[in-house]
């Protein structure tokens, strides 16, 4: 009974999702439902901050600094998505009250993911999150692309869950436990079966974070899904899956790191390089952001591959900065529309600085930041990643990382080029949407002015990895 008190945030999100589901049947005001969902997420933020750190349910569910930080990042992603939903729901034909409720369920799944310390809890969280996302991707039922995205995501997602379960069964079979900490005590490091289990679980998780070679779904789903949901994909689930990946690897196989380090090493390099080259040819902004996110996950994985406190610290710094940059980019993608039609092609941005100088300079700076050019926040993310890599003597990984960052600078610069150097087109009429500006300006200024005093973020991430080192 006492344990229930420790998972109040989870219970609160669950209850509010259920209450809103029932309310939605009677109240036709979707905006109200959505605002209530935002409110409950805000309350959940407060609840998570005040949560005592503890491991409960026979140590299968852990609440520590690490999980709390991840939960707050996930809440931010969810709140941003819901705010985006308000302004775009009618034009995108997703004016359904299920939207905020599905987001809440998905958020709940992610909360379980980042706190789970047990293979079963992990799987339940993962599935709750994924099932909501499958529905969300296909939410625009009249659009062929959206339905295709939903089906594609579902089939591949089901496959990856299958792989994950297969891996889980191997790990259970060869260690006799499902609890991460107990696995760490009981496994036989000689056994090949355990290694197979790790490989399969990693494959399943790599699918969730969309790391190469399990990234195939990402561009199609990003393009097909309605934009607020694309933003959600980029913001929350990847961060949650990354938290899960770290806990799974470090808690259960921390000693065995030589076996999985090379896997992470490989998918990190593959993600960075593939994204850098593949994004060059993209014409659709959402596909481009998909490849961009694959590349960023590649960088973040360097932090995991280091297997050090420096590495985890840099991973957290990177994810936080990545979150803020993506909030800014996706809000601006959503606020640019002409005649009620949202733009998808990058060429639609052509010459936009003539009509919207202030918005354009902020977007351009976001692009520079994504490319990792100082003095913007993206640079500090990469800086700490490389600090961690060199600290663990992974010079090769760092060199590949900087080469990929130079190549990827090209496609980010291409967007700047189109916005500034090409012939102007008509004005966009969505840049004044108040609810998006509320997100766009603070996130952009946060990225631009981050360099003035970066110390708090760095201290925060050092604080958050205390339970690992």
């Amino acid at each position: 009974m006492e344990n229930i008190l420790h998972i109040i945030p989870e219970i609160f999100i669950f209850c509010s999702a259920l209450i809103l589901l029932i309310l939605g049947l009677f109240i036709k005001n979707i905006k109200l439902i959505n605002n209530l969902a935002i409110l409950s997420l805000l309350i959940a933020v407060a609840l998570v901050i005040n949560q005592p750190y503890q491991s409960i349910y026979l140590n299968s569910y852990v609440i520590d600094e690490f999980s709390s930080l991840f939960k707050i990042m996930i809440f931010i992603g969810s709140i941003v998505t819901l705010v985006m939903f308000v302004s775009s729901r009618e034009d995108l034909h997703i004016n359904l009250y299920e939207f905020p409720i599905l987001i809440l369920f998905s958020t709940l799944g992610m909360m379980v993911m980042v706190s789970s310390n047990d293979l079963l809890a992990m799987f339940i969280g993962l599935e709750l999150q994924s099932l909501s996302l499958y529905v969300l991707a296909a939410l625009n039922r009249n659009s062929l692309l959206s339905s295709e995205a939903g089906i594609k995501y579902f089939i591949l997602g089901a496959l990856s869950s299958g792989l994950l379960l297969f891996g889980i069964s191997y790990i259970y079979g060869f260690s006799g436990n499902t609890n991460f900490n107990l696995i760490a005590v009981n496994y036989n490091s000689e056994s090949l079966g355990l290694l197979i289990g790790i490989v399969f679980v990693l494959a399943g998780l790599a699918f969730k974070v969309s790391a190469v070679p399990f990234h195939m779904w990402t561009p199609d789903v990003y393009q097909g899904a309605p934009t607020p949901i694309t933003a959600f994909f980029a913001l929350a689930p990847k961060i949650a899956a990354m938290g899960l990946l770290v806990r799974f690897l470090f808690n259960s196989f921390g000693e065995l790191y030589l076996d999985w380090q090379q896997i992470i090493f490989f998918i990190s390099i593959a993600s960075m390089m593939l994204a850098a080259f593949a994004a060059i040819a993209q014409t659709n902004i959402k596909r481009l952001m998909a490849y961009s996110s694959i590349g960023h996950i590649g960088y973040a994985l360097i932090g995991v591959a280091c297997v050090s406190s420096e590495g985890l610290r840099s991973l957290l710094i990177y994810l936080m900065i990545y979150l803020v940059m993506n909030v800014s980019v996706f809000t601006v993608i959503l606020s640019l529309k002409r005649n009620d039609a949202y733009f998808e092609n990058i060429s639609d941005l052509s010459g936009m600085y003539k009509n919207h100088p202030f918005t354009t300079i902020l977007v351009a700076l976001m692009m520079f930041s994504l490319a990792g050019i100082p003095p913007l926040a993206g640079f500090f993310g990469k800086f700490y990643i490389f600090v961690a890599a060199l600290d663990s003597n992974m010079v090769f990984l760092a060199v590949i990382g900087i080469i990929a960052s130079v190549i990827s600078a090209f496609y980010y610069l291409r967007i700047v080029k189109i916005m500034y150097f090409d012939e102007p087109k008509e004005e966009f009429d969505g840049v004044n949407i108040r609810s998006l500006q509320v997100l766009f300006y603070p996130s952009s200024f946060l990225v631009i002015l981050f360099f003035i005093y970066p110390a708090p973020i760095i201290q925060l991430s050092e604080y958050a990895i205390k339970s690992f080192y």
Partner: protein
Amino acid sequence: MNELPILSILILLPIVGIFFMTLIRNNNDQSSNNLKHTALWISFLNFLISLYLLFSFNQQDADFQFEERYFWIEYGISYHLGVDGISILFIVLTTMLVPICILASYDSIKFSVKEYLIAFLALETFMIGVFCSLDLVLFYLFFEGGLIPMFLIIGIWGGERRVYSTFKFFLYTLAGSVFMLLAIIYIFITAGTTDVSYLLDYNFTRNEQIVLWLAFFASFMVKIPMWPFHTWLPDAHVEAPTAGSVILAGVLLKMAGYGFIRFSIGFFPEASELFAPLIFTLSIIAIIVTSLIALVQEDMKKLIAYSSVAHMGFVTLGIFTFTVQGIEGSVIQMISHGIVSAALFLCVGVVYDRLHTREISRYGGLVSKMPMYAFTFMIFILASLGLPGTSGFVGEFLVLLSIFSINTYFAVFATTGVVLAATYSLWLYRRMIFGALIKDDLSEMLDLTRREIITFVPLIALTIFIGIYPKPVIDIIEPSAKKIVSQVNGKLN
């Protein structure tokens, strides 16, 4: 010491200016003039502050002065500023050139004036920051951050092939610099700090030095630029607007020369000594090859751009002699080149604004229509080829003197560069200014306007002043140069 954080003020003032300028609406001629005046006064005020800095600078003291240090990112990476006798001159050069650039852009920039001026002031902040920072991460931040405004300046207000040029400029520089970033991170991990004044006393092992030196070299070699990675420079110069070329030649190239003096030989003396022959060879090749390339150019800006590469060859020659004279010569050569090449690009801008072409063959006989222009252009052409009595001579002479004491052969080859410089410069001058005025469209050309005269007067005065009486400048450089040389020799023995 001085309590006022004067270096921070220098860095922040342009940002304050940007803030005010964003508040001014830009919708008619009157407001765009207001914007220009605001930017001009802000940058001029910055120049005055830098003069105050120069006059309150203690010339006898070889240490860093006006130091500021605040906690910034974490232990070991701090916000640390300071100047010595070498960097202070670059700061004054920067703050002097920026108002001149803004003045030169008054008529030539026709659209998006506000964005242009904001980009320029932002660039000024980054450039001053590069020369002030005594922390490697801070240095890298300013060094790379300057790419953003420069990318936009070339790309938006440039010529026809601006997109190609600006991408080339950006990606070349970025590709070089990221290796420096890795080196900086490595230094941070091994030495535990990126503080320059600490690292100057730190001893890296020989192997570390070699790798780190190469990484820094990759960045500075592209930026300065050295043969064979100089190809971005002519492209960038040709397509950039006049003021962009001025600041590119005047200040941005000097960042790399400054980096060589401060970091490459300061941190890694053994590696520098090891690689000095490589530098000498590349510099000699650069001097001779690019001078020959300059001879066949049809485009004025390209010609001056190639001559810049040759002049920067002298700079690298001087730095890696590890003598006081060599370093002094290099610094004076950089200052002089900053003034002279900036002025030459302004001269190109003057005729380009009137005729809208940079092809040399379209001109000829300008002296009969534009006598004042011909006089101005002559002074800078002569300074560029290193005529005694101009600033170009002092730097080249000191560099040649120092290289002669090291190796006669290198000195001989370098001296041929001086002859070639005279050839292409004077030939350019003859083709443009002398001869009969036969082309119809040239007969309408007007001589320098009052605004243009104002931009040239300080540059002429400085060129001749440094040429005739270089002692005040040398006095400022000497203690710091001596300190660097003694530090290097101390580490080598």
